[in-house]
């Protein structure tokens, strides 16, 4: 499975693979959070009045809220006044129109990350809207998409160019009152992506954004909004890497998806932010609110995530199944090694008739990692013939880690069929032995078994992502056996 050259590379990358920083001057506003900071962010971004109002309302609501304490996570308290809420690459004024104009140093960073923008453009047909810290610096294939009427741009551009759409959909799935981190994000979000696929259009390529947290002490607050109109289809990829840092960096993103009648949205994530070192020092705090609304009949939203990074993950990509016959899916692999902690899962809210949801969650715990699945399946009173199937499997490696399952199943309609199954077990010693007997190293054997364990989820990922995800798992598990 793993060639010798690959092993050599993996050996070299025992430390965090993407741990380097880029020296680009950045606009950073002073640390701290108050209404003036929010006004400043809004002014820098030249936002219309309605955005500032919305941010301020969110901020005022946030000040009345408490940080949630219920997750199965332990981390030192975050001082929200010690964070700078905005960082943008210096050359904000003359935004590049094509790749040639992009700062070569940024391009070099992507090269190091192994993101072949050039190659992807030609071979894979992926349009990349790369977010470098907070402002989009490169957008490709925009022209081709715009021929079809698809809008794929940075959130800031959308606020300027498509204020009606933003007004209509912003906060319609995740209102700023939703939770502590969503309120914070709504107040200070820097940038993100906006996708709008008009009626009947099938987006011809996978849309992709690579996020990258760069400046030290800058929390990154993206906001993504994807709207698929009647009969539209879009597949969106999100992948993340971050440079090595010793201080915890806060990340609180919000993703909103809206699917109208017969629309389908597929959202895939590979999250590989810096997880902290072997002793649990440093690493990203990832507090994300992701939610999709199947507003229309027969609409479908599918979440697939591979979570291998971050020191602390708090993330529940959810589906509100409002339209009759709508479908929600959640496929997840979460891996915690060393001192990583993950509290992740999903919510499936069945409101419409004949709604269906599937949850497949695979948790892998190694080292001192703590991995929790927390999920809600709620069948509302009028959700006739709702159907849910949930499967949560956990694998433990070593006797110092933990795997936990906290499902909530609330059924208010007797025509619903809801099933939940969970298992927790150790990685099979027989299987490892069998592989070793065939000449594989123990580490390779573990990598192969884990990849097999996660197959059901990897199958849902787009091709390129699936390959990357498998490699990522093997790298993340290094040093966890023996």
């Amino acid at each position: 499975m793993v060639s010798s050259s690959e092993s050599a590379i993996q050996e070299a990358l025992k430390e965090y693979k993407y741990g380097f920083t880029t020296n680009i001057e950045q606009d950073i506003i002073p640390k701290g959070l108050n209404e003036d900071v929010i006004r400043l962010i809004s002014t820098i971004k030249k936002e219309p009045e309605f955005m500032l109002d919305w941010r301020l309302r969110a901020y005022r609501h946030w000040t009345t809220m408490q940080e949630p304490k219920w997750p199965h996570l332990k981390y030192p308290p975050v001082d929200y006044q010690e964070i700078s809420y905005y960082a943008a690459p210096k050359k904000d004024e003359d935004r590049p129109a094509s790749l040639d104009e992009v700062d070569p140093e940024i391009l070099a960073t992507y090269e190091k990350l192994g993101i072949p923008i050039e190659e992807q453009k030609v071979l894979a047909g992926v349009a990349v809207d790369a977010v470098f810290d907070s402002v989009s610096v490169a957008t490709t294939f925009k022209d081709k998409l715009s021929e079809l009427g698809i809008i794929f741009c940075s959130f800031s551009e959308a606020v300027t160019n498509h204020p009606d759409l933003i007004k209509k959909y912003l906060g319609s799935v995740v209102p700023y009152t939703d939770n502590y981190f969503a309120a914070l994000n709504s107040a200070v979000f820097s940038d993100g992506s906006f996708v709008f696929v008009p009626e009947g259009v099938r987006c011809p390529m996978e849309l992709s954004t690579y996020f990258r947290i760069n400046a030290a002490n800058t929390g990154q607050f993206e906001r993504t909004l994807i709207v698929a109109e009647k009969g539209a289809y879009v597949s969106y990829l999100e992948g993340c890497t971050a440079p090595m840092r010793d201080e915890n960096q806060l990340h609180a993103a919000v993703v909103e998806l809206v699917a109208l009648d017969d629309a389908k949205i597929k959202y895939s994530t590979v999250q590989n932010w810096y997880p902290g070192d072997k002793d649990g020092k440093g690493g990203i705090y990832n507090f994300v609110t992701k939610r999709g609304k199947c507003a229309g009949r027969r609409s479908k939203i599918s979440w697939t995530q591979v979570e291998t990074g971050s020191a602390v993950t708090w993330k529940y990509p959810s589906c509100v199944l409002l339209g009759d016959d709508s479908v929600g899916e959640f496929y997840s692999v979460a891996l915690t090694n060393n001192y990583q902690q993950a509290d992740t899962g999903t919510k499936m809210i069945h409101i419409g008739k004949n709604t269906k949801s599937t949850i497949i969650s695979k948790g892998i715990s190694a080292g001192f990692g703590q991995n929790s699945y927390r999920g809600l399946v709620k069948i509302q009173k009028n959700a006739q013939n709702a159907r849910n199937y949930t499967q949560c499997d956990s694998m433990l490696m070593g006797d110092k880690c933990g795997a936990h399952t906290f499902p909530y199943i609330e059924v208010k309609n007797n025509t619903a069929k809801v099933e939940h199954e969970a298992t927790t077990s150790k990685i099979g010693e027989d299987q490892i032995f069998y592989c070793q007997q065939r000449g594989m190293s123990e580490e390779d054997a573990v990598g192969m078994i884990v990849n097999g364990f996660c197959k059901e989820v990897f199958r849902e990922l787009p091709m390129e992502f699936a390959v990357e995800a498998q490699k990522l798992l093997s790298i993340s598990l290094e040093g966890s056996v023996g």
Partner: protein
Amino acid sequence: MNQSIAPIEQYTAAFEQFEKQTAGKEPDWLHQIRKEAFAYLQETGFPNSRMEEWRHTNLSPLLQQSFQLCRDDRHDVAADEILPFLVENLDAHQLVFINGRLDPKLSDLHGLPEGVRVESIASLLQTDAARLEPYLACQGSFEGSIFAALNTAFMQDGAYIYIPKGAAVDKPIHFLYYSAPNGEHLASHPRSVIVAGQSSQAVIIESYAGRCGEEYFTNAVTEVALGPNASIEQCKLQRDSDKAYHMTVLQAHLDRDSRYKHHSIILGGGFVRNDIHSILDAEGIHCTLNGLSMADGNRHIDNHTWIRHAKPNCESHELYKGILDDKSSGVFKGQIYVAKDAQKTDAKQANQTLLLSDEAEMNSMPQLEIYADDVKCTHGATTGQLDDDAIFYLQSRGVNQKAARSLLTYAFANEIVHQIGCEPIRGQLDRLLHERLPMA
């Protein structure tokens, strides 16, 4: 009803009065425990539905009522009134408590094997309180359970069962808590203590019942301690009136190689909450927790269980089933906790609920919290209605729809009933199920 007074304050006055009554009549250690428990109650207050353990059970209907402690042991319950609540065809050692106090005339303790003690806690406190001291309120502290604290503060009587080392009790031991408040708003806080010595064996039946249509509050705590290699089968039959408030906390502490089987059969009560804490504190233990809840009308049944695997090589099996009709609602929360050292744990948990009406609702929260790697732990939860294909199959064989539904519901419930080892209880439950499902 006294809605203007906050519940805690209401109890404060009651506790002062209670202290006056019991002053000098009780050993100091007990008085001390009561005071601590009440202080805990005052400090913590009653939970609200924003708290995780109470998110689906709103206590306000209970807290809005004011219930009085029963002042004396006078009552108008005749022997034939409680007869339906004693297990038919069962020859048992029997204690009967009316409104929380022992009635010796209704009890039957002849022929107890030597060394086995089955008696009332109230009388034991008068005659031989030192016997109780090592066991009473020591199994589980009341901390974390406000109703256990309330019971500790106000308990007056209950069953004390002691089975000495090596003894096998010939007949089942049955204790019945029967409420007949005659229109008064009575609260009883029965306390049961079950101590099974090394290698002892017994079948214990714990019944709760009440006069039809009466409104009362039963807040029971049962403490169980199993010695090494002890084998106990315990069956709880709850057939309270449809208006009763029933809260119980069971705390079981299990020692090496012991076998503990607990069946919780909930057929009555308007507002029911059961907490079961089972601690597997040594190696080689087998623990089974089974439950069957049947509810109709507006009734609410909430079961919480905790199984704590503290040591390696133990097995636990848990199956909780619910049958909910009309506008009834059910809650199940089951936690399996596997501590860091508890390798080779084998834990299985399942919760299955049948919703028979459009308006019934179920909230299920099976949980696994696992800190050891070499374990086999699974849980499953299903909620749904009767299988249409199965009904159709029966109809095609000439069984009418109503009978088919009854039959399938009966079969669903029977999975719990047939696991009960004691035949007369199985027979009794079978008859009760047939009463509720007439065509089955």
